[in-house]
């Protein structure tokens, strides 16, 4: 089956990608394409993109042939940089990421299916800006930074500022995300990614909650909620409460998470079910870490 009319352009350098975009400002940068091509096929953006850029892609600029975007590299300050064209599967099997950032690996292994993970990219997952983007649960907890290059040069965006709404990011017109950076001080954290979906593979999450702990950081605990708000969400009040380690901390943190989210009714679940499950998953995550389990 053919897609609706689509122009395909391939960039071999970041400079070429930006130059191609400046000639066709309605073009979309494409990495794995596993979200973008179904959107092109439907003729509309996916429902999560409503309110965002709702026009389907008519021109794509493929960035997978840009060499530096295909790498996972160590930066001068000790951060690990995951290039925009690195597949979710490559992240999940990377020895250093497996050892030091296990929550990110768990989130990657929850995304899509085996063949999808071989194609989909972590950067594409966050640029699609779905409230259920699995990898964002870890990237938000890790305070990752998103490096983008555009007409105004290179800048880094804090993960906490990246999502603006369903399908909407802080990226400016013509900006290309080149890599996402994980700071060295987040090595060695432990986390638990709890996820409810109609089936374990392929389906997007109905609700997902990541609870993690990083010794020596402030806050030490991190909680991320997915699929229960217009964007993936951190819950700072619950994190601070967990750090104080008071009695009934798990239950109280779960209550704060429930109050912090604003889920909708849709085909996957009612808002009420989602709220209840946020509490269940948050509490489960906290207890899993408390007994020394989790990864």
């Amino acid at each position: 089956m053919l897609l609706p009319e689509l122009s395909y352009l391939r960039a071999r350098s970041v400079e070429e990608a930006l130059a191609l975009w400046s000639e066709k400002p309605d073009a979309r940068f494409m990495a794995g394409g596993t979200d973008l091509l179904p959107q092109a096929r439907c003729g509309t953006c996916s429902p999560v993109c409503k309110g965002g850029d709702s026009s389907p892609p008519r021109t794509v600029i493929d960035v997978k042939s840009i060499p530096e975007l295909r790498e996972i590299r160590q930066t001068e300050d000790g951060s690990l940089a995951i290039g925009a064209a690195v597949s979710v599967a490559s992240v999940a099997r990377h020895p250093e990421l497996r050892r030091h950032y296990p929550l990110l690996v768990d989130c990657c292994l929850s995304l899509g299916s085996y063949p999808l993970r071989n194609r989909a990219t972590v950067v594409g997952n966050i640029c699609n800006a779905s409230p259920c983007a699995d990898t964002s649960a870890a990237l938000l907890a890790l305070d990752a930074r998103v490096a983008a290059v555009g007409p105004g040069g290179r800048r880094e965006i804090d993960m906490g500022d990246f999502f603006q709404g369903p399908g909407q990011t802080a990226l400016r017109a013509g900006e290309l995300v080149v890599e996402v950076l994980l700071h060295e001080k987040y090595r060695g954290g432990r986390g638990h990614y709890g996820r409810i979906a109609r089936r374990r593979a392929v389906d997007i999450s109905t609700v997902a909650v990541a609870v993690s702990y990083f010794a020596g950081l402030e806050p030490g605990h991190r909680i991320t909620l997915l699929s229960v708000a217009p964007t993936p969400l951190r819950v700072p009040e619950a994190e601070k409460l967990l750090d104080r380690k008071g009695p009934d901390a798990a239950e109280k943190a779960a209550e704060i998470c429930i109050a912090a989210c604003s889920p909708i009714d849709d085909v996957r679940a009612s808002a009420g079910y989602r709220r209840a499950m946020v509490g269940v998953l948050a509490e489960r995550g906290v207890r899993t870490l408390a007994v020394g389990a989790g990864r």
Partner: protein
Amino acid sequence: MGTEIKVEVNGVVESREVEGNQTLLSFLRDTLDLTGAKEGCNEGECGSCVVLLDGLAVNSCLILAAEADGHEVTTIEGIGDGENLHPLQKAFLKHHAVQCGFCTSGIILSTLSLLKENDKPSEQEIREALSGNLCRCTGYRQIVDAILEVVS
């Protein structure tokens, strides 16, 4: 506006001009007449279009033909033919792991991709690798049994 691509399919270099909106699945089936990869859902859910791209299982419905330029594609036709079957295909026959057959080529190729990464997968790892391949006939038991026999 077409794009010139050169792609190695089952060991044969194919040089063609493709349109920007042609998927790799359509290129294989409609242009090269390799109909082993099937069109099911067309959105990456069912896995009946799975082929190997540079040795890794991918959904060919979610890849543009133009993206395959410079890469190697393996379809079920490159694994065995009607006379000479791959050991995995023989095991599928023995274990009755094929009923209607629509999902089979995708499942064989997802399995081969897994075995390239991990030649002694556990049953759990096999099931995980087949998570993107739907089979509505067999209930997966026979499929998993066939694969376990080949890896043991």
